[in-house]
């Protein structure tokens, strides 16, 4: 069905990048896919990537929605997550005994915190029409100080058994807990998309807010809603991050993760100018970024140099994925196809004319 073909075309880029990274890793060492069992849990390169990318995957989902509806990005997600996890840690530390209920209540409180932060950004963007990046610049600047004020001290330690299990593994279950939580989150999002019109509304608002309004959709509400969802995503990501770390480092927790989240959205084939979006693309994009990070480590590139290599890789990727390059490839592909056809019908040497990069303008 052409529908299916169409809906997968945007995944070509992230999937081929992933394939390329896998090849590089296999060249480096054939044991790339080896998985070992340590204390009843699975470890290895692939589980490590899934484990490491958990927060990024969750944040990329929120970032995709915010981008699609508001045509801009939320750069305060790492700071939001730091604040919500500060709330979480504060509640857990003041409890005399840490029970599963304590953790659940603390998590729910941090979610409320996330929604408040999302509402703050969302209000600025939807009602006051502040550019998303400028609106979230406020929390980006002040967020870590707020987290520090909630904590009251530098790096409080989460020394309880449950937190440890959430951050690593639960005995008897072979898969690390953050991986499971991420999967649960993805399923939750999938259910939301299945049972609501979130996609249709967000895409409509992102593509043409005027038309959306004239057809009964309130663009302000939808943009606000996506920021609320972003806030919730931050809270979940903060929860996973702080339990993984075992302590709450207000200064470094999920630092600069918005860069990777925005990149994941872009690698996933989404336009940063809003409109149509693919959550699947962003999720694959997020895992690809983690894979890239670990590949560079595995290639034993000097830690100080890693960022340079990452930057070069991203530049190449973005140029290849740019509309100009895409139009060029499409054109070349068309020419090759049509010349093949001509070869089939007329067994003469088909002449391939020089290509012209003029991008076809749609009506």
């Amino acid at each position, binding site marked *: 069905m052409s529908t299916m073909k169409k809906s997968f075309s945007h995944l070509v880029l992230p999937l081929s990048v992933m394939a390329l990274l896998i090849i590089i890793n296999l060249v480096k060492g054939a044991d790339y896919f080896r998985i070992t069992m340590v204390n009843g849990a699975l470890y290895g390169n692939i589980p490590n990537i899934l484990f490491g990318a958990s927060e990024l995957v969750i944040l990329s989902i929120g970032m995709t929605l915010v981008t699609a509806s508001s045509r801009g990005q939320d750069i305060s997600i790492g700071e939001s997550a730091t604040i919500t996890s500060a709330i979480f840690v504060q509640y857990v530390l003041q409890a005399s005994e840490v029970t599963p209920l304590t953790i659940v209540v603390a998590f729910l409180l941090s979610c409320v915190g996330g929604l408040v932060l999302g509402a703050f950004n969302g209000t600025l963007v939807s009602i006051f029409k502040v550019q998303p990046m400028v609106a979230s610049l406020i929390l980006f600047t002040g967020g870590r100080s707020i987290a520090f004020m909630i904590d009251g001290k530098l790096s409080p330690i989460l020394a309880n058994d449950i937190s440890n299990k959430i951050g690593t593994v639960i005995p008897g279950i072979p898969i690390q807990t953050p991986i499971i939580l991420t999967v649960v989150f993805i399923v939750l999002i999938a259910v939301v998309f299945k049972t*609501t*019109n979130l996609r*249709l509304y967000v895409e409509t608002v992102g593509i*043409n807010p005027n038309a959306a309004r004239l057809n*009964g959709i309130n663009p302000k509400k939808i943009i606000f809603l996506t920021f609320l969802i972003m806030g919730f995503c931050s809270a979940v990501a903060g929860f996973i991050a702080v339990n993984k770390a075992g302590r709450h480092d207000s200064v470094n927790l999920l630092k600069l993760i918005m860069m990777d989240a925005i990149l994941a959205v872009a690698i996933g084939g989404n336009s940063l100018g809003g409109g149509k979006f693919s959550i699947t693309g962003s999720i694959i994009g997020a895992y690809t970024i983690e894979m890239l990070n670990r590949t560079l480590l595995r290639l034993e590139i000097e830690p100080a140099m890693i960022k340079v290599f990452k930057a070069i890789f991203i530049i190449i990727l973005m140029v290849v994925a740019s509309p100009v390059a895409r139009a060029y490839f499409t054109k070349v592909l068309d020419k090759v196809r049509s010349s093949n056809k001509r070869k089939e019908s007329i067994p003469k040497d088909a002449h391939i004319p020089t290509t012209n990069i003029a991008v076809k303008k749609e009506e």
Partner: protein
Amino acid sequence: MLSEIILEMKDISKSFPGVKALDSVDFKLRKGEIHALMGENGAGKSTLIKIITGVYEKDAGLITLQGEPIHFKTPQEAQDKGIGTVYQEIMLCSNLTVAENMFIGRSHGPVVNWKQMNEKAEQLLASLGIPASPMQELSSCSLAVQQMIAIARAVDMDCKILILDEPTSSLDEDEVHKLFELMRELKDRGVGIIFITHFLEQVYEISDRTTVLRNGKLVGEYETASLPQIELISKMLGNVLEDITKLKKHEPVVTDTSVPVFEGIGLSSVAGVRPFNFAIQKGEVNGFAGLLGSGRSESARAIFTADKVTGGEVKMKGKRVKIKTPLHAIKQGIGYLPEDRKGDGIIADLSVRDNIILTLQVLKGFFKPFSLKQAEEFADDYIEKLNIKTPTANTPIRSLSGGNQQKVILARWLLTHPEYLILDEPTRGIDVGTKVEIQKLVIQLANEGMSVTFISSEIGEMIRTCSRLIVMKDREIVGELRGTDLTENDVMNVIAKGGRNA
């Protein structure tokens, strides 16, 4: 008149994946003639133009410019050879001055000689009789003057051929005449002008010759004066012409006691329309007639609350209702097809299917999405009913032609089964065949009991479809016309007399 041929195109063909846009078309342009290029949407006019201007490369054929074979690869090359183009939408920078707009991107070297530029601009404006000063900011000029400045920019460099692609679509009558004067001036200078428009009257007013294209093929080249209008239409359409004359409008049964479907009392909006009263009966088709800016669209928008309403009250079937947002209006059974199809109507990147189900889906609610199967059924149903030409229901709406996009928006509203449907310029910028289809549909809907407000800048179209015309001038209702034998003159008279009639 000199009959020297400056541009000759022979056996031009051009294919796009899946479509043969041009099939060995010939075209000749003589020196100092205004040549109308006519055809429905999709006939190949734009493709032909884009080949002349170097936007597309032809697949086959020969182009000669003053006897010399040419092969443009980029628009710049065409420009350098003296082919200027002015498009429908004005592509100038409104925050720059007139002179800057005329010479932007033309200066060679990094230094701009402002004084010289302004002087040159002044000369050119004066010689073409354009009422603008070089130092004026472009946005302070009227649309017509802006259009003229775009032309001045195009003809500045030793221009031999000027292509005008629907330059009049956003101009009022007076402005059109000013533009025509400029065209005649250029014609006298020996410039060959290719003129594309949807307004037949303008073709007869200004053009010397007419070339008609249909479905990518050449129908013929004619002396405009010796080609009767009715024949021109039939050449453009093939044989759907009879349909226009067969249109029979519907006369609703209105008694004094019938309660109107919609009644607005003292409505006014932020768009500046004066408080007005308006009512429409079940099964009635009415029109808001008036010139551009008369308030015809603003009134429609006020009814639907597309613009914020600042006063007045609304009754649906005699009951007072509160309508504050478009959503309220939709829930009350009002539909509104906006004037600006691109800006307010289509969701360009979404599929035809999503565009069709959008409003019904909004009515049904956020938490109750249609299944894919249901949505497909709705879409396929209306694609068939309205004869929407699209490869699949999954195709993005932006890749459809204007007429088919408009049908999709119509389908979107029909799917919600409104009691009262407002169509604001549903036929603007679309081909004649689709225009007729839409007019027929309006009459059919009224026969089925829907109330319709039909707004069009072509008064003839409204006279054919509407049983009552509300005439507007200067954002006020100045009269009302009923009857089956109205003529355009009746409407003009009411407009001319202003508020004293009624």
